[in-house]
């Protein structure tokens, strides 16, 4: 493609416009870098980035496998064998990942070997068919919710790295409400989820309010709050008068009462629970908030041009605090999905790497709610499939992290992908159109 894109507006002179926009897009700070990465991305670029990551991930899988390396040692005597071995390992890894996260044909054949459908269902053979999908959904739930906690403030021009602290805030609230009180079934779980939202929102509000009042950069504030909350969690879990389970030395809370568990969605054999529905509902809610409400209009306007928004009468500082509060609440919901959905207790490792994964998910999802759901499902699938992959092919689970890192690397560097596939830079015009239309457009 060497012909310039057709200019639809006769009054525009394309080359200067393009260079001007490039000037404005020069990343200056950390947050700007994310912004630049997201703005330059298009759907095509994202798909190509995923593909590139898969190819390199496959090569890495193959060439870290001892059998393959052995076969390549004898490359000149049996080159066909070496290549076949490499292909087998790489392909086997991806097949195992797929079987662990989406669909495993063996479960179907096992289902049909049963005497009758009713015994099959009773013994869990039917559940086994859907288990990979269920696991993907379970893994994706907190990723989607924390991803939204990054994507929403991003639309308002803020970079929320505080997913971890907000997650911990929500986790402490819902774990405490979950084991310390006894309430009727439905009421209890609702109270706990609201508590988780409030706990996360409090942390988000704190970060936003500090920025609004003092002008401190939200990146610094949220990172520091992550440490504060990390040690606060360790503290409350090591004191019997606080959250630590009695009669023990382990840093862990008592188990959550069963009334506070998120209801399972597909029988007792599958872990998929109402948390997944909360995540999907949250994504729809965020989309609606951003694109259909006056509040979202303010968020997006401030994110795109805070100065003009101020002139138009918007209260920029109050919106910063508000968007961070909502984002914190979303991260808190992620905590609820983990504590009340799968773990049923809180320990110092409960927060996992969700805070950082969230940035990855938001980046891959191009900062839009629909994209975040898709990215969350993808990473959820990788997480869900990795244990099975290790068992089946001997590929270490860490390869999944490598794969994740590769995806981010390619997504974060659109020019790299463009160079590889020789795609012309998307015109700023087209990109911004798709940005402003949002999800579903």
């Amino acid at each position, binding site marked *: 493609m060497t012909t310039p894109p057709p200019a639809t507006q006769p009054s525009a002179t394309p080359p200067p416009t393009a260079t001007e926009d490039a000037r404005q897009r020069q990343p200056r700070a950390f947050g700007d870098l994310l912004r630049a990465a997201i703005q330059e991305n298009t759907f095509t670029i994202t798909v190509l980035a995923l593909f590139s990551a898969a190819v390199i991930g496959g090569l890495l899988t193959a060439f870290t496998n001892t059998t393959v390396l052995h076969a390549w040692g004898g490359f000149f005597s049996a080159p066909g064998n070496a290549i076949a071995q490499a292909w087998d390992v790489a392909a086997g890894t991806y097949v195992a990942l797929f079987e662990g996260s989406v669909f495993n044909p063996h479960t179907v054949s096992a289902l049909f070997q049963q005497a009758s459908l009713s015994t099959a269902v009773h013994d869990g053979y039917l559940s086994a068919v859907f288990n990979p999908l269920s696991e993907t959904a379970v893994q994706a739930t907190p990723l989607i919710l924390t991803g939204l906690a990054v994507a929403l403030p991003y639309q308002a021009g803020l970079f929320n790295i505080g997913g971890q602290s907000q997650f911990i805030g929500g986790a402490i609230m819902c774990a405490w409400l979950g084991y310390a009180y006894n309430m009727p079934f439905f009421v209890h779980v609702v109270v706990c989820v609201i508590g988780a939202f409030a706990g996360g929102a409090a942390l988000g509000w704190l970060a936003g309010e500090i920025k609004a009042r003092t002008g401190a950069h939200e990146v610094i504030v949220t990172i520091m709050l992550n440490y504060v909350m990390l040690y606060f969690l360790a503290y409350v879990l090591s004191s019997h008068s606080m959250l630590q389970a009695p009669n023990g030395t382990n840093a862990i809370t008592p188990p959550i009462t069963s009334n506070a568990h998120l209801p399972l969605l597909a029988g007792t054999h599958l872990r998929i629970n109402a948390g997944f529905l909360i995540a999907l509902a949250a994504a729809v809610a965020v989309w609606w908030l951003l694109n259909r*409400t006056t509040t979202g209009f303010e968020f997006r306007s401030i994110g*795109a041009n805070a100065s003009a928004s101020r002139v138009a009468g918007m209260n920029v500082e109050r919106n910063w605090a508000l968007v961070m509060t909502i984002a914190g609440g979303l991260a808190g919901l992620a905590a609820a999905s983990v504590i009340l959905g799968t773990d049923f207790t809180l320990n110092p490792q409960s927060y996992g790497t969700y805070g950082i994964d969230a940035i990855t998910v938001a980046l891959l999802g191009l900062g839009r709610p629909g994209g975040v759901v898709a990215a969350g499902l993808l990473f959820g699938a990788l997480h869900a499939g990795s244990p099975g992959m290790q068992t089946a092919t001997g590929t270490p689970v860490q390869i999944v992290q490598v794969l994740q890192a590769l995806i981010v690397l390619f997504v974060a560097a659109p020019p790299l992908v463009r160079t590889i596939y020789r795609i012309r830079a998307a015109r700023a015009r087209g990109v*911004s159109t798709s940005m402003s239309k949002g999800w579903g457009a």
Partner: protein
Amino acid sequence: MELELRGITKRYGPLVANDGISLSVAPGQVHALLGENGAGKTTLMNVLYGLTQPDEGEILTGGKPAKFGSPRDAIAAGIGMVHQHFMLVPVFTVAENVTLGIAEAGRAGLLDRRKTRRDVAELSHRYGLEVDPDALVEDLPVGIQQRVEIIKALVRRANVLILDEPTAVLTPAETEELFRIIRQLTGGGTSVIFISHKLKEVQTIADKITVLRRGKVVGQRTPPATEDDLASLMVGRDVQLQVSKDPAQLGHVVLDVAGLMVRGEHGGMPVNGLSFQVRSGEILGIAGVQGNGQTELCEALMGLRPTAAGAVTLNGRNLTHASPRTRLRAGVAYVPEDRREDGLVGPFTVAENLVLDMYDRPPYAAGINLNLPAIRANAMERIQEFDIRTDSPGSPAGTLSGGNQQKVILAREVGREHKVLIASQPTRGLDVGSIEFVHRRIVEQRDHGVAVVIVSSELDEIYALADRIAVMYEGKITGFRDPDVPAAELGRLMAGGADSTGVPGAIVEPDGSITVDITAPAPDSQEEA
């Protein structure tokens, strides 16, 4: 060196940016390229500078055909370009920035700093381009930065210098300086291609004027050509440069600013005890050299900057410490000075920008929900009414031309219920057609009984619009005048000359009358208070 372009054609898809353009530039000549935004001036210069290749046509230097595959070739052929946006490294010194542009390094690949410094000094001296080679570029005012760009080109032995909209960022005084430099350069045999859409400047400096419209040469003139002639060539129809307006029908006082004091970003009092009144149906033009507190005044009037002292009243309602939103709701329409930064949200659609300060009121919102059909309908209506040239209401506002962006802002601001219109530099950077449009709309507002305040550093604009002129100098109004005042008198006031009363302590009242406060030792006494 004689430079000639023959039949240059450049297409971008269906758009013909340059359509068989031919022109020649003689040594020592200033050749002006005049045209509205989008007429193809910049594309032509990009072709000449090797940034893009023409589809047809050829470039001749000194009578021989030349092919410019990249700027490097163009530079080698002696062509230098000063872009509208400067290509300078802010944290480097002048000499370092000049070094950047030189291809050849000294012995062993080392840069010869001393030689560059010498070259800079020598060139500065020869052409009267005073620049300190050791100054950091970021510390220099825009006018001086432009000189650095010119030196960069001259160091590379350019004998054809392309200046792309060189005066867009300059103050009137800096423009004068630039013209002096251009004359020195042409006196030394350098040719200058001067790209502009400002008629006056082109008249002043050019030896030959080529007018472009929609990618074609529509005429060539040699000064003195009349401005009306040039303007109609440029726009393609007769343009009324002078705004025709009826005498003002004065009403009651709408906006009353009394003793306003505003603190600056870096301390000081950029607005220092300033008073004026504007009546309904009147345009008050605030003239003054840029940087005398006009920006701070407008920001304070909009509540974007806190008021330190004084009072702002709108129809008797005290707005001194009100928030921007309260002021907008109270009936202040505002056209900001920097439209890209303060007036529009670039990535937002035209429709969204048209409700940027009304999105939360009916009919555009119902409770917390946006009423998208209403927003769209409003956009269609305004686009029609203000002749906003856009593909659709869904196009990002940032992609519109400057004139159309200004129309969006104006359409939005006067589309609300408003009693006063404050417009700061309303036509800066706009082409003739848009200026005419904006001026007409502003006068129309006045005729509807709106009190209008125009803040402008362009005297032409003040003369064209104002029913009464106030001159601002160092945060104060140095005098009120009627619009028939001679420019020299305004110039004197703009330079801080005492009011014609010549009496210390004399205060010019907002209505133009003069009172003398004998107890006041000096007019600056408010500063200590």
